[in-house]
């Protein structure tokens, strides 16, 4: 087995720590996300409030740990949903080919052509502010990218002689798709997921930033950055640390994705 690069290992450790502290937030965080320390509003990082406090005296470190819950959950779940939907749709479209493929891909084009932000705003307006609205909106705008990618790969792979060999042996369509074709796009899917998770985290941040994300006093990294933004000149720590968390998480997902893709490729065994 080829050695997994250090960057991927460190990324995995980092993501594990973030995930665990998000899950066990009430035990890990030194304060609650809404406790106000009115004596120490807008404090810089110190021994009591490790990353400082905001204008209401809430502990930034604790709010970031609670915020990780929303950010990670939204990022991972919407990406997995979008990947499953996109994979199924794209694989079937590419495998059937012909007119059905043409029709299915035109539908994808239509969804793709609608401006993402407009769609997300519409859906969150209809479904109300909250995590569910964000899920639905982000899944709807991101499955099409996966569908296109997967369809392209299936179109390429289904012409390989090993697929023909399987047909010559009498394998059915389901077997060919699941056992012959899909294993060959696992690498692509892993990389896609690792690139889509950050996109979803960023999208949630954007939504929160423009005020369509989750409602206060709950926090996500996006809402924290948004709050910090207003006082960037005088209290830079308020935007610095949430942004850093977003940045490091995205970077880690990308490194992890690369490492996983290589680890899953039989050529590296």
């Amino acid at each position, binding site marked *: 087995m080829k050695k997994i690069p250090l960057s991927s290992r460190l990324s995995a450790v980092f993501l594990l720590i973030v995930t665990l502290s998000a899950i066990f937030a009430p035990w890990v965080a030194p304060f609650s996300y809404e406790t106000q320390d009115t004596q120490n509003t807008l404090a810089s990082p110190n021994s009591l409030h490790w990353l400082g406090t905001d204008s209401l005296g809430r502990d930034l470190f604790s709010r970031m740990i609670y915020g990780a819950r929303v950010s990670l959950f939204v990022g991972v779940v919407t990406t997995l949903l979008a990947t499953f939907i996109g994979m199924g749709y794209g694989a079937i479209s590419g495998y059937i080919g012909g007119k059905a493929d043409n029709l299915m891909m035109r539908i994808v084009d239509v969804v793709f052509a609608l401006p993402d932000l407009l769609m997300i705003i519409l859906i969150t307006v209809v479904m109300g502010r909250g995590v569910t609205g964000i899920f639905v909106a982000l899944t709807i705008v991101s499955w099409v990218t996966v569908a296109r990618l997967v369809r392209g790969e299936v179109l390429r792979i289904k012409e*390989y*002689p090993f697929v*023909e060999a399987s047909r010559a*042996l009498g394998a059915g369509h389901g077997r060919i798709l699941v056992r012959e074709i899909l294993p060959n796009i696992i690498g692509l899917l892993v990389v896609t997921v690792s690139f889509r998770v950050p996109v979803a985290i960023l999208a949630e941040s954007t939504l929160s930033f423009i005020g369509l994300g989750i409602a206060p006093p709950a926090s996500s990294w996006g809402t924290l950055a948004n709050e910090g933004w207003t006082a960037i000149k005088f209290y830079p720590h308020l935007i610095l640390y949430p942004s850093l968390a977003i940045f490091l998480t995205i970077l880690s997902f990308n490194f992890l994705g690369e490492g996983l893709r290589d680890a899953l490729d*039989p*050529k590296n065994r």
Partner: protein
Amino acid sequence: MTDNLGKPNLLEVRNLKKHFSVKENFTRNSDEPIRAVDGVSFHIKAGKTLGLVGESGCGKSTAARTILRLVEPTSGEILFKGENLVPLSHKEMQPLRREMQIIFQDPFASLNPRKRVRHILEEPFEIHNIGSPVDRKKQVEELLNKVGLSPEHADRFPHEFSGGQLQRIGIARAIALNPSLVIADEPVSALDVSIQAQVINLLQTLRENLNISFLFISHDMAVVEHFCDRVAVMYLGKIVEIADSDQLYQNPRHPYTEALLSVIPSIESGQRKQHLLVKGDIPSATNPPTGCAFHTRCPIKEKRCETTVPELKEVEPGHFVACLLRES
């Protein structure tokens, strides 16, 4: 086209056609299809080998895939052990697939890179529900032995093998279910010459031990002469000459066959054959020449070749040729 040697035909193909329609623009197909296979007839007796030769693009591989119903024929009949395969549904084809298998040209692309050899070779048994997992394991080991590999190779991935070894695995998969017919689509043309000989010898051994009939597709006249009992020469979707190997190689009738044979290298000095070169490329199958399709490149063509389509005619027992000038 029957020679009464007593043995039944394992495979008989009658007037097989495969036309592909071409997209002219987004909405309509062009009226002129590509005539990849345009009225091909031949038969293979049990245990015998038919060679199918011709240059690239003449429809050899399409013919092979059509016979296995990997490509749907446009018209014609494919009689396998007397049963016409053309009207069968894919479900009805299923049990027959055990009997007819294919070996591909590209050994790398014909094995799934994500599967271990064991899984590749177990697939035929899984699909047809043969044996328990333990039996299958044994079968895989036997198969590997049969094709000159060892059981330790079973747990490796395809990229760990050389081209020749991969082709052996491809052959093992094809013979796994004891087929009576194997279509070998240029099985050695992607391999080094030294490896070619090994693979051909393996195919020969298997043919003798397992009583397999081959449809052997190739553009290498020397390999075909060595391996086949009977040879059919294809040009632009049609068979232009078909005869027993000895007859065809010693007494070719069709000018195209002559041209193909003249490029076989010979080591006998003094007897240097004159290279009968055919000029130009194979014409487009969308718009084949009128009359005899070969007339655009034929060194001996006459005026009537441009208008009259030659039929396959028997010039001596078992030797058929489609040429107006050489049919008597």
